[in-house]
C-alpha cells in the first residue's frame, strides 16, 4: 500500500516535535529538581541531625526514651530502605524533640529485613550497637552511608565507619554479631512485625497500654504529617 507523502511529513514532524518536548522535559527535570536521593531532606522542622538530636536521651537496647513514657511507638525499618532514611533524617529529630525528650513517648527500634540479604548484616550491626546503648545513632549513621538497594553497600568497612561515628566501639560491636542478645532483639522485631501485620517499611505501631497496638496511618513522612497522625492518639 503506497504511503502518501503528507503522512511521512506528519511522522517526521511528530518525531521532531517529540524530540523537542522530551528535551524540554529532561532539561526541566534535571535543572529544576533538588539534588541527590534525599530530595526532602531540607524540610525537617528542626535543624539537628538525628544523631545530634539523640544527645541526653536515655537509651537501652532497642529502646529510646524514658521507660515510664505512657506511649510506645515501635518503628519498623530496614537499613536499606530509602523511605526509612527519609523519615529518619526529616522527621526523627522533631519526634525526639517534641515527644521523646519530654517523656511523652518512647521509641522501640524494630529492624527487619524487607529489602534483601544485605539488610541482615546491617541489622546485626544495629542490634549489636544496642548492646552499647548506641543503636539509634548506629541506625542514623548507616542511613548516612546508604547505597542502592541490594548493591552490597553494607560492608565491614561501612559498619566500622558508622560505628565509630555513632560513638560505639567498632571491634566489640562486630564481635557481638553472633551473640544471643543481638539475635534476641532481632527475633523480637520479626515477631512484632508478624504480630502487627507489618508488610512494608517504615511502619509505625503505636500503643498506649492497656489499649491494643495500632498502626499509624500516615499521609506523608514529613514532621507535620507525622504529628497530625500521632497527636490524636496521645489525647
Amino acid at each position: 500500500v503506497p504511503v502518501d507523502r503528507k503522512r511521512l511529513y506528519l511522522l517526521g514532524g511528530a518525531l521532531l516535535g517529540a524530540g523537542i518536548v522530551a528535551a524540554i522535559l529532561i532539561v526541566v527535570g534535571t535543572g529544576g529538581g533538588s539534588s541527590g536521593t534525599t530530595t526532602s531532606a531540607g524540610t525537617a522542622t528542626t535543624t539537628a541531625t538525628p544523631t545530634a538530636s539523640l544527645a541526653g536521651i536515655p537509651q537501652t537496647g532497642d529502646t529510646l526514651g524514658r521507660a515510664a513514657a505512657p506511649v510506645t511507638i515501635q518503628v519498623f525499618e530496614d537499613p536499606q530502605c530509602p523511605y526509612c532514611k527519609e523519615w529518619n533524617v526529616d522527621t526523627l529529630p522533631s519526634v525526639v524533640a517534641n515527644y521523646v525528650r519530654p517523656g511523652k513517648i518512647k521509641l522501640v527500634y524494630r529492624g527487619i529485613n524487607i529489602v534483601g540479604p544485605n539488610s541482615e548484616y546491617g541489622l546485626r550491626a544495629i542490634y549489636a550497637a544496642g548492646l552499647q546503648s548506641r543503636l539509634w545513632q548506629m541506625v542514623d549513621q548507616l542511613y548516612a552511608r546508604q547505597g542502592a538497594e541490594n548493591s552490597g553497600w553494607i560492608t565491614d568497612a561501612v559498619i566500622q565507619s558508622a560505628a565509630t561515628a555513632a560513638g560505639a566501639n567498632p571491634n566489640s560491636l562486630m564481635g557481638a554479631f553472633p551473640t544471643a542478645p543481638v539475635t534476641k532483639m532481632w527475633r523480637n522485631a520479626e515477631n512484632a512485625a508478624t504480630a502487627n501485620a507489618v508488610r512494608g517499611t517504615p511502619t509505625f505501631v503505636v500503643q498506649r497500654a492497656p489499649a491494643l497496638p495500632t498502626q499509624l496511618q500516615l499521609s506523608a513522612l514529613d514532621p507535620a504529617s507525622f504529628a497530625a497522625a500521632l497527636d490524636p492518639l496521645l489525647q
Partner: protein
Amino acid sequence: VRLRASIAAAAVIGAGIAAYLTYVHYAHIAPICVTGGCETVQKSKYAELVGVPVALLGLFAYVAIIATTAVRGIEAAFAAVLLAFVGVAFSGYLLWAQLAPIGAICQWCLGNDLVISVVAVLCVARLLTEPKPSE
C-alpha cells in the same frame, strides 16, 4: 479499527503500570519488586518532574493515547504518535538514569519501556494507514 483497539489495549496495560507506580509513590510504600531496585529508583530525583511523579505524567499520557483511539482521522493518529514518541524518548532517558546515575533497575519501568515502544510502533502503523475521511 483493529489497530486502534490494539493501541488502546496496550495503552491500558501501560496505564495500569503507571497507576500502580503513582499509587505507591503517594502511599509511600515500596513497590512489589523482583529486580531489587524499584524503591531506589522511585525515591530518586528522576522519579519526579518539578514535583510531579513521572508515573502520574505517564498515566496522563496513556489516558490521552487511549482517548485518541476513540476518534477517527489523521489528526487523532498524529496526536497519538506525538504522545507515544514523547513517551519513548522520556522512557529512554529514564532507562539511562537507571543504568547510570541511579545504578538500580526497576522492573515496572522496564515493563513500561516495553509497552510504550509497542504503543509507538502501533501508532506509527495507524498514522500511515488511517483511512482518509472520504474513504
